[in-house]
């Protein structure tokens, strides 16, 4: 039986014996399902951006509410936090736009070069801009702590500390997985020649 597998022609025969599985009945059904998937991805993306934007709105609301107290330190801290988040949102939006502009109908080698440039750009975001933005966020939040300490009960103060720094922890957890996948893809793309 092994001899059946010996020639490439047999492999080709085997290849063509593969059915297409659960093929949709029409182009309409596949486009409908694909459009749903696309919308789900978009919802997920905009949902993430929405959460970050909402956080900024809440921070701005705090700023408006508390601006009469310890204005300089508080303003500075809040300003740093807002700037770090706005820059992060801007970078994600820019990345999404760049990704959507990748031309998938190019020849493989040309396309992979284009994709490599894109993932190098992502690498810069992950390893240069993101740590910097983390730093700015931490400094900003730390500057708010004295005001929080004087303005809120010890229980709420504890909650603010936990959520403020904890936010970074949660964000880092999800970001780490994404970075790993992207860097693996970049390494794979570099093997294309």
């Amino acid at each position, binding site marked *: 039986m*092994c001899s059946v597998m010996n020639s490439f022609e047999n*492999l080709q025969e085997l*290849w063509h014996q593969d059915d*297409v599985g659960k*093929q949709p009945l029409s182009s309409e059904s596949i486009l409908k399902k694909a459009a749903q998937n696309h919308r789900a991805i978009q919802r997920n993306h905009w949902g993430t951006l929405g959460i970050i934007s909402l956080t900024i709105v809440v921070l701005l609301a705090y700023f408006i509410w508390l601006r009469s107290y310890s204005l300089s330190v508080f303003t500075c801290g809040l300003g740093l936090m807002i700037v770090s988040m706005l820059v992060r949102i801007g970078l994600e939006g820019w990345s999404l736009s760049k990704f959507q502009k990748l031309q998938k109908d190019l020849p*493989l080698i040309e396309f992979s070069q284009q994709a490599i440039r894109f993932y190098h750009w992502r690498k810069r975001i992950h390893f240069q801009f993101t740590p910097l933005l983390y730093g700015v966020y931490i400094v900003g939040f730390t500057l708010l702590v004295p005001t929080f300490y004087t303005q809120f009960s010890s229980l709420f103060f504890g909650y603010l500390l936990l959520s403020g720094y904890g936010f970074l922890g949660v964000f880092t957890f999800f970001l780490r997985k994404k970075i790993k*996948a992207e860097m693996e893809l970049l390494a*794979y793309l570099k093997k294309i020649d």
Partner: protein
Amino acid sequence: MDIQVQFDHLFQTHYPKVYRLCKGYFQGDHDRASDAAQEVFVKVWEKRETFRKEANISTWIYRITVNTCLLHLRAQNNRKTVRTEYPVTVPEPTSDDAFELRRQKMYACIQKLDPTGKIIILMVLEGEEYSAIASVIGTSEDTLRVRIHRIKKLLTQCVQS
């Protein structure tokens, strides 16, 4: 011809090829192949103005297919790995399972090729012309011919082992 009718014809004609290529690329993973094939046709639809002007529509669809599969790697870590290994001792085939087993072995051997070699051999298995494959990869036909010879040898040796 109405664009939707044209698209439907395109879909019916090319879906099996696109699906098989994706399935080979993702080591026989039906779900991931279906997702990728779907994405390919969405892209084709989105670029419908382009495909109306394309002289060689098959090559154009293949380019979208290989590039889509390439970036589908992004989601790989979030999914369960499917059939990454095949049994070292192949049992005597007595039913349809034997076919499936051999196909899985072929998929596993394809995964061992370098990324470009993997895509090339998937199109060779499909029976595409070398000129079309060269156009999809973006290399010369002469270079490709040498490469295909080497890849075929590697693949058949692996499947026999």
